[in-house]
Structure formats: C-alpha cells, structure tokens
C-alpha cells in the first residue's frame, strides 16, 4: 500500500517535471524576448540623452545622426557650470524642494498619526477626502490658486511655490505615513501611557523615532515631486524665483535654434538627484505607490 503510494507520487512528480521542461524553456525564451524588446524601447532614449550630452555640436546636428559617439566632449557640462541663470534656478529648486519636503512631513506626520492610532467620527471620510484630493485636476487648481495668490500678494514668491507644491505632497505624505504608523505596535504607546507619559510625549518620544526611516522616505518622495513639478512652477513664480523645470524651458526652448546637446546635459544633471533619491527609496517604492499617487 505504502509502496504504491510512493510510486504514484514519484511518477506524478516526474510527470510534472517532464511537462514543465519544454514549457519552461519556452517561457524563459519568451521572457527574454520581452525583456530585450522592452529594454530597447526603455533604454535607447536614456542612451540617446546621455550620448547627446557628450556629443560635440557639429556632430549632434548632422543628419542622419551617428548612433555611436566618435568624439566625446565635456563642453556642454562646462557651459552649464558657467551659466549663472541656470545656477539661480538650481538654488531655487533646492530651496523650494527642501522646504516643501520638510513642511509636508512635519504637518502630515501629525495628521497621519491621528488617522492611524485613534478612532473617531469623520475619520474615514476625511481619509478619503485626502486620498481623493490628489486626483483633482491640477490645471484647474492652478487657475484659482493663481487668483488666490494674486489677491494675497504671494504671487511670484517662494511661499506661493511651496504652498502650491504642498497640494500634492501633503496627501501623498499623509497616506505614506499612515501606513508607517500602522506598523508601529500600539502596545508600545499603551505601555508609555501606563508609565504616565502624555499622549503628545508618547507621540514625540516613541512613535516618531520609530517611524524615522518612513519619515525620511516620505520626505524624499515629497522632495522629488517638488523637484519635478513643472506647471505650478511655470505659472506661479517670477523669473528669478523659478525652479529648474520651467527654467530649462525658458533657457533652451522657444529660441530660433535649440542647443540640444546643452539641453541634454542640463537634463542629465537635473535627473541626478532624483535618481539618487530613488536608489535609496527602492524598498519603499511599492508601498509608497499604493499609498497614493506618486506621479500624476
């Protein structure tokens, strides 16, 4: 009896293997074909950005373009370094993005904590409102924000930019941080309460330190979103307060002939901090994405 059972088990396992082998070869092959094809679509443009940034002007503007560099130049990066206007945009970008990130994290941490650790009337509806708010049309919001900032005299200031960026970083941070606080065990807070700590002290000395990595991640996401924003920065600022994305448009587009290699070099530099941030954020990626809209 036992013998037959073992034998059928072996046979069926062998059958499975026999069935799986050609199957597996085929699916591996299909997988590699997909990876290579999509890889070409995904990577060739990135390659072209980098290649153009290092190509001398006369070669970049020859047609058909040579796909492989025969000559490499660092001139375009040198041009960037000498461009004071661009340096100004860079400084604006850093100021605005850092302040947006810090402000968003500080304010949303309290809100997320309230959402995560307490149960009260109106909590669910408010959470939904926050989640929904990041899906309202930005271009429409922009039109009335312009009117609001114009009436309050904030138009053109850093404050206008930071506040307008908060419209999409705040909901994002609230949802991310709620997820983080959910993972901090409530028993720790109850223990602190039994030891006589106030709720505010429990929040500051126990919950926040435990959530610190999450706070950093949320801050980086907010930083990236602010760094990448184009339409608010294009419209709500004076030229001397403008950040890099609209700044690059002003510097390079709309002229008679665009200096493409210079623009690609600038694009390369603008992308670097974002790429660096995402390398750190890899493991928060999926959680952060499901928690809210990272990219609109």
């Amino acid at each position, binding site marked *: 009896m036992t013998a037959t059972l073992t034998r059928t088990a072996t046979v069926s396992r062998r059958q499975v293997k026999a069935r799986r082998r050609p199957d597996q070869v*085929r699916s591996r092959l299909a997988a590699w074909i997909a990876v290579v094809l999509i890889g070409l679509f995904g990577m060739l443009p990135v390659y072209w950005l980098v290649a153009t940034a290092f190509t001398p002007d006369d070669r970049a503007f020859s*047609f058909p373009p040579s796909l492989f560099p025969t000559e490499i130049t660092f001139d375009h990066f040198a041009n960037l370094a000498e461009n004071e206007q661009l340096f100004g945009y860079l400084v604006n970008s850093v100021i605005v993005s850092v302040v947006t990130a810090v402000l968003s994290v500080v304010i949303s941490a309290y809100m997320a904590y*309230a959402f995560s650790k*307490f149960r*009260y*009337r109106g909590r669910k509806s408010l959470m939904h409102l926050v989640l929904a*708010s990041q899906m309202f049309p930005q271009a429409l919001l922009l039109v009335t924000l312009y009117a*609001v900032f114009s009436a309050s005299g904030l138009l053109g200031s850093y404050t206008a930019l930071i506040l307008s960026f908060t419209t999409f970083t705040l909901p994002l941070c609230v949802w991310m941080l709620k997820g983080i606080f959910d993972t901090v065990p409530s028993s720790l807070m109850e223990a602190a309460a039994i030891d006589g700590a106030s709720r505010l002290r429990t929040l500051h000395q126990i919950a926040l330190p435990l959530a610190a990595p999450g706070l950093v991640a949320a801050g980086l996401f907010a930083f990236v979103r602010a760094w990448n924003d184009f339409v608010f920065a294009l419209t709500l600022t004076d030229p001397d307060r403008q950040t890099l994305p609209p700044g690059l448009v002003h510097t390079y587009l709309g002229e008679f002939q665009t200096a493409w290699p210079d623009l690609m070099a600038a694009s390369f530099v603008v992308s670097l901090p974002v790429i660096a941030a995402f390398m750190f954020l890899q493991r928060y990626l999926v959680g952060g994405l499901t928690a809210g809209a990272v990219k609109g």
Partner: protein
Amino acid sequence: MNTRKLSDGQFAWLLMIPGLALFLAIIAYPLASALVTGFFEQSLVRPGRAFAGLSNFADVLGGDFWPVLRNTLVFTIGATLIPFVIGYALALALNSGIRGSGFLRGLFLFPWVIPGVVVSFLWLWIFNANYGVLNGVLMELGFIETTVSWLGQPVTAMIAVIVTKTWASFPWMMVMLLAGLQTMPKELHEAASVDGAGAVRRFRSVTLPHMKGIAGIVLLLEFIWNFQHFDTIYVLTGGGPAGATKTFAVAVYDTAFKGFDLGHATALGGLWMLLLLVLVAFYLRRETKERS
C-alpha cells in the same frame, strides 16, 4: 497646553488642525471657488466680475468641450492601455525566474524616475523633424524616404505624445504588477500543472484571476492621472497642431493664462472635474473594498 483632559477623538482632531487648515486653504477653497467662478464673466488680469449664469457653460459645450473631450479620451486610453500591456509583459517576464531580474527591475525604472520635463525634452529631441534620431534610424532602415515632422501633423503628434507618456509610465505599471505577481502562491501554479494545465491555460485560470484586483487599481489610477496630464503634451506640442492634442489640462491652462478668460476656463474645468469625480469615486470604492 494640557492635553490630558481631552478625549482621544478631541486629541486626534487637535493633531489634524495644521494639516486640515492647509488643506482647506490651498485645495478645498480654490477648487470650490473655481466651481463658482464658472458662473461669472471674469478675467484673470482685471479685477471685478459679472454674473453670467450658465452662459460660460453653454459656450464651452457649444465649442471647445467635445473636441477636447475626444482628444483627452484618445490620449488617456492610449497612454493607459499601451503601458499596461508593456508593463504586464515585463512583469511576467521578470517573474518567470530569469537570471538578474532584480537588477533588470531597477534598470527598467529609469524612464519613470526621470523628471517629467526631462522626459519631454528628450522625446522632443528624438522626434525632431530635422535632426531627430527617430527619423535618422527609420531612414537608415529604409522605412521612410524623407524626414517626417512627427509633431507637426495631427495624427502623428497624438501618437508621439502617447508614446512619450507610455515610455514614462510603463515602469510604474511593471513595479505594481510585479508586486502582485510575487504575492501569488507558487502552489497554485504547481497544482494546475499537475492537473495538466498548459502555460496559456494556467495564465488564464490562475494568474489572471489573482491579478484582477491590482490590475484594476493600476488601470484606474493611470487613467485618472492621464485624464489630467499636462507636462508632456504642453512641452511636446502645446496642444497643437491645430488643436489635435489639446486635452482638458492644456485647454484650461491656455484659456486662463493665454486668453486670460477665467470664466470660460473654470467652466471647462468644472465639467472636466465632474468627469474626474466619477472616476475618483470608482477608485475610492475599490480602495475601500480592497482594504476591508
């Protein structure tokens, strides 16, 4: 302040005050005032306004609305379904146990990580009519004989913005769908295999049902985002040529900031927001279902 006397609910509300204040000031109030402004004749650059009743809405519905809705739908559907298919194929490929899939996943994130405005510059350069690499490659391969002005013709311009947005968002689809695939118990596939199901059958009967939830959310979110997408279209075509890529975002922006016509801009924007609200309501219902 002594918070010990407060109930938990009161304390929670106290914590939310700064966030709620900011929320009301910069999101709720502007959006509400946008909806009101739709009923007024108002300029962006001159103070004062006059009540206009429904005339802005009538103008919009009799003019811009329908072509803009059509363009928005074409763009949104294209820029949602194409990256979905690509992202799904890639997620399946990376989940099939091929070597280096972790590294490849990171590599494929690049297009998505790059700032939106850089994405636009890059593709503007690729599609460039005179020196663009796309024309260069297609001519070398013999697909076209003369250079094509991709962004200068209505149909190719729409295709171009869809391709650009596809490039920028398929990695996000890939990450989300891959996360879904990785939560699928291996035993399910093995059991189906023992029962004699081939790869196609297993995909249809095991993988697809398991992925329904996440695929639905991903499609819906991407649809909502694309429905209000601005950057790529604005930089690549500015809504042209001849309004062929003019979506709601571009139309509202142009009406307000080039035509300075706040009344018409917000009337169009209000209709746009109504459509979005339906989508967002779907999303919230699914979210609530998923979480409970």
